[in-house]
């Protein structure tokens, strides 16, 4: 990748940045619009891609996609298929009413949308319980309700993703941009040593904390991360907080891989975990 091209609203994408593959149609991501201008000379209309947001142009020649990376740290807006961490607010006959982000309408989670749930075996969630869920639908128009689910509707299983109630552990707030990065990094963690998206904090923590029995982590797109390390027994709280601090520190200060390693070492030393 050469120097990144930054576009402002109204800018057109220069044609030499477009992926040249002719085999399959070009997929256009958010922030870009296809405009066609009826040309006077030839019969074929001219097509131009124009940006509607400011962002870094990102092209993927392999998948033949083009999209615009806009400002990452925005308020979370539910989108279908997002993994999120929700908190139960109250329950009614058919639904658990959950909070996804503060000051927004509650989302609905069906009492039976858990793996293997029946009228008798459904989980009895109380107010304040945490669930890891997927956004099923966001509805249309104003005042639409967001619906969540903890099962894959096709298979009826909680995996992939390990959906369902999250017991124990602790939730930390992150920026939505960081949450997206963590999710992306974890989904594409194929090679061990190559840092994905410039994130080494998790693998570093994993290495350092192996002696404490490891830890469990769930990341929600709504800017929340749930950390649990009940295996660490008497050090459980310390380890949990250390992980949270490392993640939040990386997020707040936009650390590069080297600094992330330093932060992990320093935090663990400060908390006398090494």
């Amino acid at each position: 990748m050469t120097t990144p091209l930054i576009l402002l609203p109204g800018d057109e994408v220069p044609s030499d940045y477009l992926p040249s593959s002719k085999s399959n149609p070009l997929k256009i991501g958010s922030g870009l619009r296809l405009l066609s201008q009826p040309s006077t000379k030839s019969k074929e209309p001219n097509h131009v891609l124009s940006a509607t947001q400011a962002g870094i142009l990102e092209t993927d020649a392999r998948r033949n996609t083009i999209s615009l990376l806009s400002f990452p740290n925005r308020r979370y807006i539910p989108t279908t298929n997002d993994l999120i961490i929700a908190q139960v607010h109250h329950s009614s006959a058919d639904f658990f009413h959950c909070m996804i982000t503060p000051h927004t309408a509650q989302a609905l989670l069906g009492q039976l949308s858990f793996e293997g749930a029946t009228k008798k075996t459904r989980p009895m969630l109380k107010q304040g319980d945490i669930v890891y869920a997927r956004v099923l639908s966001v509805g249309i128009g104003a005042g639409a309700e967001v619906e969540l689910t903890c099962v894959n509707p096709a298979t009826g299983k909680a995996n992939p993703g390990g959906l369902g109630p999250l017991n124990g552990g602790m939730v930390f707030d992150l920026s939505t941009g960081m949450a997206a990065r963590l999710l992306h990094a974890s989904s594409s963690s194929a090679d061990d040593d190559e840092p994905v998206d410039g994130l080494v904090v998790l693998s570093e923590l994993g290495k350092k904390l192996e002696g404490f029995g490891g830890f469990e982590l769930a990341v929600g797109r709504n800017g929340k991360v749930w950390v649990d390390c009940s295996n660490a027994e008497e050090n459980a709280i310390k380890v949990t907080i250390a992980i949270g601090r490392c993640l939040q520190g990386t997020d707040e200060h936009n650390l590069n891989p080297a600094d992330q390693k330093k932060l992990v070492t320093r935090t663990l030393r400060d908390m006398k975990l090494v």
Partner: protein
Amino acid sequence: MVGPTASLSNLHRADGSASYKCPVTGYDVLGAVNAPIELPARKDALKPEDATIEVFVKPGKATAGVGERYVERILRTMLEKVILGREKGLPRRGVVITLAAVGGEAAERGDSYITIIPALLHASLLALISAAVPLSMTFTTTLLGVTRSGQIIRDPSPAAAKAVASLHVLSFSSKGHLLLSESQGRFDFETWELVRQQAASICRAVATTGSDGDTDMGEGADGAHVDAFVRETVEDSLHRDYTWKLESA
């Protein structure tokens, strides 16, 4: 001449925010944008296929009065045209822009609010960009005063603005359209034409000779063009947010 300064995404709770400070006129505006949001209790007033845009201007030291209503109306009518309110997710929702004049002289009753318009417009543009509200284009604004002797001065301070014969605020889109022109005082049309010419050269790097509308960033060696300033501010901010990505690539 000291150029303006701006920064993006300074507020954490808002969807997008920006601050814009112009040391010459002394205005310092903090803008926040929330979009798309549900506007309560006015469902019947919402346009079925377009976003509803609301602008609130808060003066620094007093409660908002009729003057603020006037600027709000100008900003709203102008931004309605720039915001793509028909894009996905926006119709029937609201785009709420709140602008607070943090610094600078407060306008007195009946004063012209023209002088603060450039700062308000730049702050709202940057905040809209940082909230990733779809826009059809960007724009830049400048304030010019014409003295009694016919001299055109750029960015007169509020005190100087009281002494000039006429005051003009002009706003140009990134494609060269005249988006806003607010003039008051005593002047004739020839004066306004001169003002328009000068404003255009301040706002835009005029090197749009490239036929395909490809703005060349190498232009504007003095860096005094306002559109270059807006672009740099946004680029800097994006660079900071995506350091991880750009470094690892």
